[in-house]
């Protein structure tokens, strides 16, 4: 295994910049997830690493070897595809053996390695079958086996779980994570499902519009999104984002929403907000919105839009002026549409972004939660 380094890589198609100066370092044995919405450049990035597309600019290194001009077959990377891309005319055994055969591995060794791989993935009993005779999960495992069998320097995975049904996806997610931990593989994993990234990856790289928005451990990206895009993309349900002006009320800082609501700010948050060039975007996660059925001073009045019980907890969709706000409450919490509910945003976990630049406003020193933005790289959002 080896690390993978991307240095300022660029891929242009005519006037369209699909990947815009992306730099990323994947350590040896690390699981890195590339996430972003469709068309954000994540799959293009993966294909550039695989050598299936030609770089416009920048460098790609595996270990410390520059591989910009190497053919895919000489890069010694293995790839797992969304549709598994198994050779339909070959039996499972021959699918697994194919990459070894192409490299001129002796027959005896091929047989031994195929058996060993099949054992690791518990697919020994499927070796004589054709891909069409396998279930989705089994095909997925064979695809993984074909990547694993030749001991590549790194694994590239292109949405490998998105063709599976929800239940199997959760199961395979756990299997993949386990697989990564057991063999210490370097994995570059592309997904549009931020949940997969958060649950499996050591680090996640959030992309949008071909630009790398933030790169760091999922926890850090979740807690300290560097801009409005990352804030809205990571986490489920999405973070509530409200536009507000910074003002003062009762001698303390406050936010005045475009719909007229007023919410006080703690001194620390007031100082952050003051650094903004104008309006701010307020980000608040569903579990940091406090609910009250009675009016309280400083709380904001909202109307219930709808209530979604999920079993573990209840999501409450609230109408705040023309905007919707999601909050979570106890499993038993219920309300009728248009009931009046008062909300307060938890000051300690309030996210503030400059509405103009959409960048996070830095936490005032040592006041708020004690965490820092750390290594997260902030870049202006594109689009």
């Amino acid at each position, binding site marked *: 295994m080896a690390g993978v380094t991307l240095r300022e890589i660029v891929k242009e198609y005519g006037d369209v910049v699909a990947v815009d100066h992306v730099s990323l370092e994947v350590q040896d044995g690390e699981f890195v997830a590339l996430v972003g919405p469709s068309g954000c450049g994540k799959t293009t990035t993966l294909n550039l690493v695989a050598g299936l597309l030609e770089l416009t600019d920048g460098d790609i290194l595996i270990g410390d070897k520059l591989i910009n001009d190497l053919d895919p*077959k000489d890069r010694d990377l293995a*790839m797992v595809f969304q549709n598994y891309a198994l050779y339909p005319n070959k039996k499972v055994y021959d699918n697994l053996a194919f990459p070894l055969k192409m490299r001129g591995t002796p027959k005896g060794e091929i047989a031994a390695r195929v058996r060993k791989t099949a054992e690791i993935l518990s697919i020994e009993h499927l070796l004589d079958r054709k891909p069409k*005779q396998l279930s989705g999960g089994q095909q997925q495992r064979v695809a993984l086996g074909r990547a694993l069998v030749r001991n590549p320097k790194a694994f590239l995975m292109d949405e490998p779980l998105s063709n599976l049904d929800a239940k199997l996806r959760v199961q395979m997610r756990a299997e993949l994570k386990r697989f990564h931990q057991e063999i210490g593989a370097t994995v570059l994993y592309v997904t549009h499902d931020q949940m997969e990234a958060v649950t499996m990856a050591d680090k996640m790289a959030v992309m949008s519009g071909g630009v790398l928005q933030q790169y760091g451990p999922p926890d850090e990206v979740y807690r300290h999104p560097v801009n409005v895009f990352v804030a809205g993309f990571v986490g489920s349900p999405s973070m509530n984002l409200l536009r507000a002006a910074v003002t003062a009320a009762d001698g303390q800082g406050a936010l005045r929403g475009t719909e007229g609501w007023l919410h006080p700010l703690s001194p620390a948050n007031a100082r952050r907000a003051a650094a903004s060039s104008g309006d701010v975007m307020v980000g608040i996660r569903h579990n940091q919105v406090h609910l009250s059925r009675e009016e309280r001073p400083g709380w904001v009045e909202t109307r219930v839009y709808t209530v979604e019980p999920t079993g573990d907890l209840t999501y409450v969709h609230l109408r705040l002026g023309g905007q919707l706000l999601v909050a979570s409450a106890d499993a038993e919490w219920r309300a009728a549409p248009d009931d009046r509910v008062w909300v307060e945003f938890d000051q300690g976990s309030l996210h503030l972004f400059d509405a103009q630049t959409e960048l996070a406003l830095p936490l005032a020193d040592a006041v708020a939660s004690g965490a820092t933005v750390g290594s997260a790289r902030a870049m202006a959002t594109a689009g």
Partner: protein
Amino acid sequence: MALSRARVLPVAPPRARRPRPGLFASIVRHWADYLYVAPALLVMVLVIGYPVVYTVYLSFFETPPRSGDWVWTGVGNYTETLGSARFWDTTRNTFYWTVGSTALAFVIGFGAALVVQRQFVGRGIVRAILLIPYVISHVAAAYVWRWFLHSDYGLVSGTLLDWGVIERPLVLFDSIRWVMPTVILVNVWKEFPFVMIMLLAGLQTVPDQLMRAAKVDGAGAWNRFWHVTVPHLKGVILITTLLLFVVNLNSFTLVYLMTGGGPAGASQLWITEIYNIAFRSLRYGEASAYSVVLFLIMLSMGYFYVKALTGGGKSQRRPA
């Protein structure tokens, strides 16, 4: 396996089986459906069924050209046909023609498909040019090539003579040795675009992800072709070669117009031979027997044809 057992849901009791309606009842119930296909059926019976029956009947008679009489000979026509050396020479020619044309047209057509599938400047024009032989009529093609390759006034022979490349006229159509390769080449020229179109259509459905997987797996261009493209095209290849085979087995126009089966029967094919027996020698009974023999041969090939067309899905069935 506990998982699969847990999934078993209560199953509705099987519906009581209704007695199967009789044939007549079924026809009565679907009378409108039969009415819709009746015109087509009637035409088929008239233009296919009647001639088949008539030909089989006729094949047991001798029909002397000068009289209008039919003389019963039993299987005489058959023994005469199958016993003649000429029949076996023609059969050999026909297979030479069919296998040679099909194989060559396939190889050249496949190559052309691979070339014009790639992106290059002027691809559209090249594709159009390569299609020309396919859209030219057989009659026009036959005459053009006859004039091209004629030994006395042909363009090729004349030009080569003028340039001093050859000293004597190039004899192709009039040479017992060279006539078959020559007519086969013309036929290949006429047929390869068909293969090209069929395989080009197939090539465009080769999954891109499979190609990329093969690249990453270390397969070079040849291995990708052999391990991904060819298996993917298996069905198209089978259908294309079978179609060509059948068409070539039934060829008439090109050979008849270019050589008339000559010289000395050296390019005689089954169909040209039957045409000669029936409409030049006016020996209808013998031509009918000949036709029936061919009909049986074609029928047995049709079996494989239908099997290939319909049985291809067998390996694609998924277990429940």
